[in-house]
């Protein structure tokens, strides 16, 4: 698929707003979920280590 330049690519034939909002939301949700889940695991690890130190 030859876009004929980045302009055309971002414009998506006039539908750029819809397409990139959709992709942007998916990317955002995926990134946020991934980070949140990893943060939860890190918190759980800290909780476990903390408990161990306190005996």
């Amino acid at each position, binding site marked *: *698929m030859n*876009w004929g330049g980045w302009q055309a*690519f971002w414009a*998506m*034939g*006039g*539908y*750029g707003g*819809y*397409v990139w*909002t*959709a*992709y942007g*939301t*998916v990317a955002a*949700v*995926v990134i946020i*979920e*991934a980070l949140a*889940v*990893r943060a*939860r*695991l890190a*918190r*759980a*690890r800290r*909780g*476990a*280590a903390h*408990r*161990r*130190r306190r005996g």
Partner: protein
Amino acid sequence: MHATSPSPTGFRLFRYAAPAEFYRLAGRVVPLVALLAAALGVAGLYVGFFVAPTDAQQGEAYRIMFIHVPAAWMGMFIYVVMAFWAALGLVFNTRMSAIMASALAPTGALMSFLALWTGALWGRPAWGTYWDWDARMTSTLILLFLYMGFMALHSAIDDTRRADRAAGVLAIVGVVNVPIIYFSVQWWNSLHQGSSISLGKAPTIAAPMLAAMLIMALAFWAYCIAAALTRARAIVLERERSSEWVRTLFGAAS
């Protein structure tokens, strides 16, 4: 309850019913699966944006399909898997099964939400309206409600075991209902649509479009596995904080 089976065949899988074993195995699996998801995602997006041609009817807007359809599939698939783990947990009384069900729910709900959101953004350019109560979107919305009900029930119950099992029953009741709900919503939509033929969501599928969609579906699947396994590991640690294996594992580290 640790099942260390000496038998050499299938029962060895029961070993991973022990949270400790699951935690270790999942820890090794997640990075690989996450990498796979990223690779598949890049490949799928490349095919979707640089190989697949413009659609005759919908122009470039149809490219939302490459994330909308996989999200919708994952939303439905995860609910069934969730109900499966819940059923296992009820039948075999294994903690790990219930933990898997709880770990899957938020991911499934997010996928359903993304399906609805991207579906609306696709609907506006494709056939003029953000939301038109078509059968698949309406069913996905109800599915989202089912996910939220599962999570709401689980968090409303303080006792973990009761929460697991009650939510498990709800998931099973839900999964039995889902085909009936889908069938009834399809009927409802076709009836009120009148005789107008609705242009289907998918444009005439050219091979690169299909390929991109399938690759993205695999990418989403891999991602969901990585996310759910990581969440499950976190839940395991949260619940098993005071048990022997956790103390050993983290005592050595600190």
